[in-house]
């Protein structure tokens, strides 16, 4: 009997251990549907003093960044992927770069650049710059890189925006002429670093040719501030400071990118001191970071992408082909209130989708259709729809911050003026295919820009009939866009964009656009500021002692 009791005692100990383990997490047990996006820790946990040896502390001289996903490839020319762009931005360089504060386009790998004639741009290169493998940065490297990027065989996803580049002529060891098929005023902008917009990184010709594309994709070599060390799939990408960097060595030794898909886990890692910088912090997480005392929040809408709702005027017949109806829809929506309520203020209303810092922004235009339901009703009546109509707003599934809620709020406001709008949500891959086939009608939400472009040219992609993704058509708009694209004189180009915006204001081909904040969580030991396009540039970051 006594042996029996011992055995039972053992069992009780095991059970108690299990209770401790599970019971700790047993607080309020929500049903699966009620799982909060960011659960707060259960209150029963007693505040415990920090143990003497805290687990996995961050290694010294190493900055650890948690990304929401993993890079697809590290060959800059072959992706359109934020998670890949972030390490790449630190491995490679571009010919030019914008000034972070003034947005002025400045030389970077190039020493200077000038327009020789309408279709020829000359770039003089910085001397003495070397790739991480020792290859020299010279005219041949620039020729190779630009021509590789526009070569259809490379199948670069961003090729379209620099497809006007015809070829590159080598003038001497450190001078190249970039020859374009047509006048291409945007060429300098496209030579600055940005995301996915054909911003061409300079790659080493000998290495790339010798090792082949497949090898280069996982063993990139650039001229950037950090050298590639190792990529362990789904675990980390490790970079090391390039001590020979032409602007001087970075302030710390290692830069590590790790993919952590779950936002709550990224937050936990930051709070536990296991990450220096986390991306895509949600507004609900901000108070926790601020209260933690171990990290802080960096938030900005500057250079953020513009999220807009396009409405068609020709692909699908219906009330929306009448501009008064499109104006009425805009007047009916109170986006300020929606941003305050749904994004908790972590965003800003833009109106016509062009950043206020962008080249060609018309500062004279009044606010884009202020909230005025009475006027909306009047316009609808004038257009012959006093009782409203039914329409669909297509929305991606959580591609943008609280996108579905914003769409639903817009639908609710439209109902007040008689428009019954239903929100149709699509999974991302389906959405991307459908928008290319112009099947998301009559209106759909999509984001544009945010790649550091800051140029009126961006309007092409939502307003030009010929754009693969535009569902709006207007001959005069097309003419102005085409003309601006081929105008080399900046002043004239600016005038064209001003005129264009006046026309677009009147035409209302989009429901007012907004920008969501980019929110980062930053450990106290990291001194870092977001870059203008919110893609991480870690060269200027420092680790506090």
């Amino acid at each position, binding site marked *: 009997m006594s042996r029996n009791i011992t055995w039972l005692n053992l069992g009780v100990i095991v059970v108690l251990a299990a209770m401790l383990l599970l019971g700790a997490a047993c607080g309020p*047990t929500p049903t699966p549907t009620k799982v909060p996006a960011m659960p707060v820790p259960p209150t029963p946990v007693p505040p415990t003093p920090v143990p003497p040896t805290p687990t996995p502390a961050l290694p010294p001289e190493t900055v650890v960044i948690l990304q929401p996903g993993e890079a697809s490839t590290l060959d800059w020319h072959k992706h359109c992927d934020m998670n890949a762009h972030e390490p790449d931005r630190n491995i490679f360089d571009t010919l030019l770069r914008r000034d972070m504060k003034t947005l002025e386009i400045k030389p970077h790998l190039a020493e200077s650049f000038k327009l020789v004639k309408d279709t020829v741009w000359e770039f003089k290169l910085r001397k003495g710059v070397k790739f991480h493998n020792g290859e020299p940065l010279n005219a041949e490297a620039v020729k190779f890189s630009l021509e590789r990027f526009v070569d259809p065989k490379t199948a670069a996803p961003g090729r379209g925006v620099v497809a006007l580049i015809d070829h590159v002529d080598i003038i001497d060891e450190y001078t190249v002429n970039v020859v374009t098929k047509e006048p291409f005023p945007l060429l300098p902008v496209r030579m600055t670093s940005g995301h996915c917009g054909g911003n061409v990184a300079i790659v080493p010709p000998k290495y790339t040719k010798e090792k082949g594309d497949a090898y280069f994709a996982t063993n990139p070599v650039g001229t950037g501030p950090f050298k590639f060390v190792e990529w362990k799939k789904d675990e980390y990408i490790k970079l090391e400071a390039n001590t020979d960097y032409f602007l001087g060595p970075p302030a710390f030794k290692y830069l590590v990118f790790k993919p952590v898909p779950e936002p709550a886990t990224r937050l936990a890692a930051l709070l536990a001191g296991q990450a220096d910088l986390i991306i895509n912090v949600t507004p609900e997480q901000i108070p926790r970071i601020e209260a933690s005392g171990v990290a802080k929040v960096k938030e900005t809408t500057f250079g953020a992408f513009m999220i807009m709702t396009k409405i068609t005027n020709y692909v699908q017949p219906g009330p929306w082909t009448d501009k008064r109806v499109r104006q009425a829809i805009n007047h009916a929506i109170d986006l300020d209130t929606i941003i305050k309520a749904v994004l908790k203020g972590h965003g800003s209303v833009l109106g016509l989708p062009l950043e206020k810092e962008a080249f060609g922004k018309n500062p004279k235009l009044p606010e884009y259709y202020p909230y005025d339901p009475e006027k909306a009703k009047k316009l609808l009546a004038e257009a012959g729809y006093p009782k409203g109509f039914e329409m669909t707003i297509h929305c991606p599934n959580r591609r943008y911050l609280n996108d579905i809620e914003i769409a639903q709020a817009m639908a609710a406001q439209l109902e007040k003026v008689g428009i019954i709008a239903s929100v149709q949500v699509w999974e991302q891959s389906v959405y991307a295919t459908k928008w290319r086939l112009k099947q998301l009608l009559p209106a759909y939400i999509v984001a544009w820009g945010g790649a550091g472009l800051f140029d009126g040219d961006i309007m092409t992609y939502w307003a030009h009939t010929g754009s693969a993704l535009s569902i709006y058509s207007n001959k005069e708009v097309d003419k102005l866009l085409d003309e601006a694209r081929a105008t080399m004189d900046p002043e004239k180009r600016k005038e064209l964009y001003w005129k264009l915006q006046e026309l677009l204001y009147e035409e209302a081909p989009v429901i007012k656009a907004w920008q969501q904040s980019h929110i980062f969580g930053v450990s106290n030991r990291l001194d870092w500021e977001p870059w203008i396009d919110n893609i991480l540039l870690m060269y200027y970051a420092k680790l506090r002692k």
Partner: protein
Amino acid sequence: MTRYIVRRLLWAVVVLLGVSVVTFLVVYLTGDPTALYMGPEGTKADYELLQHAMGFDRPLYEQYWRFLSGAISGDFGLSLRHQRPTLPLVLEKLPATIQLALAAMAFAMAFALPLGIISAVKKDSLLDTVCMIIAMAGQCIPTFWLGIMLILIFAVQWHLLPVYGRMEWRSLILPAVTLGAWAMARTARLTRSSMLEVLGQDYMRTARAKGLAEQIVILRHALKNAAIPVVTVIGLEMGSLLSGAIITETVFAYPGVGRLAVEAVVNKDIPMVQAVVFVVATMFVVVNIVTDIFYVVLDPRVRLK
């Protein structure tokens, strides 16, 4: 026995073929992946160029045939996203997933068997209730929530364990507990009911009447007989642990096959989805066969024809 195994393996090939057709169709039906791999500013011509480069402009049957003929020779094609052969990538991640599944199973068994046995032996006592509450909790707490809670308590609050990744052995603890909770709960409840059934049998009374110690009666006579359905379930659980670590691997950013699967599906990386499904399905089939063999060993009444 050998013939039985060979026949099972042949069936496994048919199963895998069926699985490949179904996955291919399901992934394909949701649309052409080209759009996802394009720059947003790309033109129609760029789209066609990329579509051709990825082979999605070919008829469906041709695409499937290309996949199948490659797969037979072990070539599952290049990942659309990574432009690297898919099978080596999956196999590279397999050890991590197997390690996690084994750890989860070890955790589950270490708790499930004692919990089940105790609550059966002490039926209707307070101890029984407590044990079953724990088991119920394991079954009804969502994996996602449990994972996050464990992280908040053990990593953020107490700084005892790593939050994410697979850097050292301690990285395995939280994911294993999270993943194993469900299997633990299910097995504990099954052990209890199975034990209760056996405890009422005549041979139990006989064993006690022989004067055997209670411990021996329960462990050797009751447990061995109660274990038969339990083993079946453990086998099935092992299969799900190997393939069902998707949520756990995502929450803990654990680099296993589940993460690969999520990434592949989200990015519509068809060759990668195919390779992952093939590997997971193979494991599932193998585990099932092994379970059946165990079954034979445990239960002499089951004879193979």
